[in-house]
């Protein structure tokens, strides 16, 4: 017999995990292992908290980004694990955008991925990242400005 708790978390897993995993892949510059670990760890921690978590879907996004940001901060360089073959134009676009996102700071990258990929509002992103709405606005503004520039223009920044 399934408990309400497991049913609730299974539903959250089915609804959120694929999109969360892909958002983490973009945020981590293509690190599949880190995306998988952060997704699994966020759900495991959430399930352990059980009914104390009111909204599992929202909770796992916040937890997963905390976990991934912490792990990225400990690393010297990202570890891209996206397939190097570029036979698919859509995959080429994804690889290009992952490469471009490496030029912005982790906070800016998180804001861009959460807004432009996951579709969260500035208010929701502030909640996920544990910051203010104005800070999220600044992150998005600076990231967009930098992404509009050519890579060789970044030297002065």
């Amino acid at each position, binding site marked *: 017999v399934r408990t309400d*708790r497991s049913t609730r978390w*299974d539903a959250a897993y089915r609804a959120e995990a694929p999109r969360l995993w892909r958002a983490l892949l*973009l945020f981590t510059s293509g690190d599949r292992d880190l995306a998988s670990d952060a997704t699994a760890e966020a759900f*495991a921690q959430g399930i352990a908290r059980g009914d104390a978590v009111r909204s599992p879907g929202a909770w796992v996004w916040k937890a997963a980004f905390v976990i991934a940001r912490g792990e990225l901060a400990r690393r010297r360089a990202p570890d891209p694990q996206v397939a190097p073959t570029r036979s698919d134009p859509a995959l080429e676009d994804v690889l290009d955008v992952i490469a471009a996102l490496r030029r912005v700071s982790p906070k800016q990258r998180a804001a861009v991925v959460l807004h432009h990929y996951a579709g969260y509002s500035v208010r929701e992103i502030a909640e996920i990242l544990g910051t203010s709405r104005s800070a999220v606005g600044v992150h998005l503004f600076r990231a967009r400005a930098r992404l509009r520039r050519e890579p060789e223009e970044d030297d002065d920044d």
Partner: protein
Amino acid sequence: MTDLGTKLRKVDRVIAPDLWNDIGTRTRNVARSL
């Protein structure tokens, strides 16, 4: 930035989540252990 969002969302079509079953198994194991 519409172009940025369009490019980002292409990840849905071209990259399947890794260790999908493993994550599910791990999550269910945690749930069972509670």
